[in-house]
């Protein structure tokens, strides 16, 4: 399923909405999550899962082609933990 598949599905189920509004709804949800993570906030959607930001410390990496050591600066990465209900649904049946 892609973003446009999701938009079509939601539009089908909500015939009273303009497709343009459905597009904005989907974009707003994704944008809000992105903006929250950029601020370092956590997004908790009970039953679905939680998005958070994890810190990765600086480390010495290696250029796999040359074998040369390179310094890798510390960074923040987005992380998603599946919610209990969704995890159970994945394994139902």
């Amino acid at each position, binding site marked *: *399923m892609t973003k446009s598949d*999701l938009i079509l599905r*939601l539009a089908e189920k909500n015939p009273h909405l303009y497709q343009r509004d459905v597009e*904005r709804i989907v974009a707003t949800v994704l944008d809000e999550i992105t903006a929250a993570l950029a601020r370092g906030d956590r*997004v908790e959607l009970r039953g679905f899962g939680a998005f958070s930001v994890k810190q990765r410390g600086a480390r010495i990496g290696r250029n796999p082609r040359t074998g040369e050591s390179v310094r890798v600066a510390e960074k923040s990465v987005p*992380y998603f933990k599946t919610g209990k209900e969704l995890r159970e649904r994945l394994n139902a049946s």
Partner: protein
Amino acid sequence: MSETITRAQLTEAIYQEVGLSRNESADLVESVLSEVADALSRGEMVKFSSFGSFSVRSKTQRMGRNPKTGEEVPILPRRVLVFKPSNVLKNAVNDGSYDLELDEPHK
């Protein structure tokens, strides 16, 4: 201070952005999440360009250990969800800024 965003804030954002009632905004947040969850439960991959993709991975059985008792127990085959953030999302998180205005919503 880091805060926690929940369905309530997503609902509020839709109410502000799209101008639906708060009730309907809340219903639509729920619909978005349940459509995604339904697709994943069917084993489908869900891809949101410039956000990231969710995929379902099947794990085979392996032996684990109860850390409290040291007893060996089989970890049964199961399906797990993996989220792979897009480069846009990774950069937003790393730079600590994401301009909602500059983003094109209709992609």
